[in-house]
Every structure is written in structure tokens, then in C-alpha cells.
């Protein structure tokens, strides 16, 4: 086994062990439901999980009737193996147009961009959002959200779930060992 073979082996191991996890985004099921009085605010937690082995960056955006009432971070970093709960706040100001009714629906999207290339493949999570404004009738809305009864569970940030937690450290250690052997061999040849 020569030096180049060893280098190739180490590089292959690095590629195999580190790149498959780049794409990996999951979300906790259920609608983000908030009851917000006029002039008040409410919040809910949007659970996102990076099931890979590297920290990933995700872009968040809102769409639908609820979009203009919501605030949340535009981007978020997700460390591997942990559910991160993003705080989503809804504010209904005093000048709310009551003709819009007492129930607003929309979505929040969490986007993980893919690898650049001829066709880039992106992963996106879509989360239904419902804002209920007490005391107002429900008006017909142009945005529909899927029928979901399960509400988003409210847990503290950082809870682990049943999803596998992949620890890259031992694999990285193994790759480093291979590289170390390569260097050792090169030194011994001289």
C-alpha cells in the first residue's frame, strides 16, 4: 500500500462519514396554534430537528394570512441530534381589521438549501399556523391549512427525541488515525 493509496483511503472515509448527513431536516408534527386577543400577543414553539451529524443552517419564512402577524428569526442554526424550538410570536395590533375574522391560517417554511449544481435539491419543512382572535366570527379564508388536530407540544429547548443521535466524533477519530498512519509511513520511508 503506497502513500497515494493511503491518502485516497483516508479521503474516501472522510467523504463517506461526513457528507451523507448534510441533508437532514425534520420537524415536530402538529399545527402552531395561538390565541391572540386584539392588542395582544401570543407565542408558540416550532420544533426543528437536524438528524445529521453536522450543524446546518435553515432559513425561515412565513406565507398566508398569518404571515404579517408573525415574528421569528430569519435563519437558525441547528446542531445535530437535538430538537431546537424556535419561538414564534404573533402580534395582533389594536387597529386589526375585524372584517378579516377571528381565525387566520398560514404556514411557516424552514428551508435547507442543497448542494449547488446543475439541479440543486432543497429540503423544506412546512408548518401550519393558526391564529385565533377571540370574540370575532370566523371568516372564509383564501388560505387553507391541512386538517390537523395534534397541537405542537411545548417542551424545553434541547430535549432529545427518539430520532437517532449520530455522534461523528468516533468516526472522525478513525479517519484521523488513518491519516496519522499515512504520515508515519511517509516518515519511515525517508
Amino acid at each position: 500500500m503506497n502513500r497515494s493509496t493511503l491518502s485516497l483511503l483516508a479521503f474516501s472515509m472522510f467523504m463517506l462519514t461526513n457528507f451523507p448527513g448534510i441533508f437532514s431536516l425534520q420537524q415536530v408534527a402538529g399545527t402552531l396554534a395561538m390565541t391572540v386577543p386584539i392588542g395582544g400577543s401570543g407565542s408558540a414553539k416550532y420544533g426543528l430537528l437536524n438528524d445529521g451529524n453536522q450543524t446546518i443552517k435553515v432559513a425561515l419564512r412565513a406565507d398566508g394570512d398569518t404571515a404579517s402577524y408573525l415574528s421569528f428569526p430569519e435563519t437558525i442554526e441547528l446542531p445535530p441530534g437535538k430538537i431546537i424550538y424556535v419561538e414564534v410570536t404573533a402580534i395582533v395590533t389594536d387597529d386589526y381589521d375585524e372584517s378579516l375574522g377571528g381565525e387566520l391560517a398560514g404556514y411557516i417554511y424552514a428551508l435547507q438549501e442543497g448542494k449547488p449544481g446543475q439541479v440543486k435539491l432543497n429540503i423544506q419543512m412546512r408548518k401550519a399556523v393558526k391564529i385565533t382572535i377571540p370574540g370575532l366570527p370566523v371568516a372564509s379564508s383564501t388560505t387553507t391549512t391541512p386538517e390537523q388536530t395534534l397541537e405542537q407540544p411545548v417542551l424545553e429547548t434541547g430535549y432529545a427525541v427518539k430520532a437517532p443521535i449520530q455522534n461523528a466524533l468516533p468516526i472522525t477519530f478513525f479517519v484521523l488515525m488513518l491519516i496519522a498512519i499515512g504520515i508515519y509511513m511517509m516518515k519511515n520511508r525517508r
Partner: protein
Amino acid sequence: MKVRLIAILTAVISVMPLALADAGDLPALVQVGGVCGISAFDPTGLNFGIIAPGATSPEKSVAVTYTNDAEGAIMNIQGTEWTSEPNTMPVGQTTWRWDMLASFTGLTSTATDIELALETDGENIQPFQFKLSVPDGQPGGAYAQVITYTIDC
């Protein structure tokens, strides 16, 4: 020298299973109300290569690894038009199919739903096939497209 190398490699290979075992799953700490998501594309992108105007590419396959243990989860697919400044090519020149589609259908810029089965036993792999047809007279260039898989649960 060779003997020493073999000894070192044997030692490394013998500890490898231990290292990999340590990288496995950790036990559950809490069960929440289901999750859904995508954990891999294989390959990580699509490349149809060079296609002449009026020609169609060979089929390309992408295996999507997803998790869905939430009732009523939906996956959908959408794309952007092909661009190679200043030229464009319609999104629908890319066609796709999966198990439940008998024939290839044009990709759209609006989402097309793919109903997912409820799967509670971990990750599932769903293959998708893609083709690209380049219209006659399409100006040459390095065109690019974005395809987005969305999961809702």
C-alpha cells in the same frame, strides 16, 4: 516494514467496529408527537449532462430518504424554471415520476402533493425518476434549476 504496516492496519480495523458502535443511536429520552422530514438525497444533486436542443436526457434517479411517523404528513415537489442568463427554459421541461405515477409528468413551480404512508419504523427510501427535454431552438448555455421537496406534518 510490511509486517509492521499489516499489524497497524489490523489493529485499526479491529477497533473500527467499536468506534462505529459508539456512533450509533442513543436511547430515547422523551417521545414527542411525531416527526417528519428528509434525511438524505442520493445523489445529493441531479446532473443531466449535455443535451442537444430537441433531445431528451436519459432517466436519472434520486432516492429520497424520509422519516414520517406523523399521521397525515404530506410531501410535495416543485421546481424553478431553468436559467442560464439571459436565457430561460420552462420548469416543465423536467419531467418526473415515482411509484404511484404510471408516466412522467412535468415538474411545476407550484407544489404537487405526494401522499406519504405513515411509517413508524424509522427511515424510508422513496426513489424518484427525472428526465429533461430541451426544446428545439433552445439557446446553448449552462442552465441550472432548483427542485424543492417539502414535507408538511
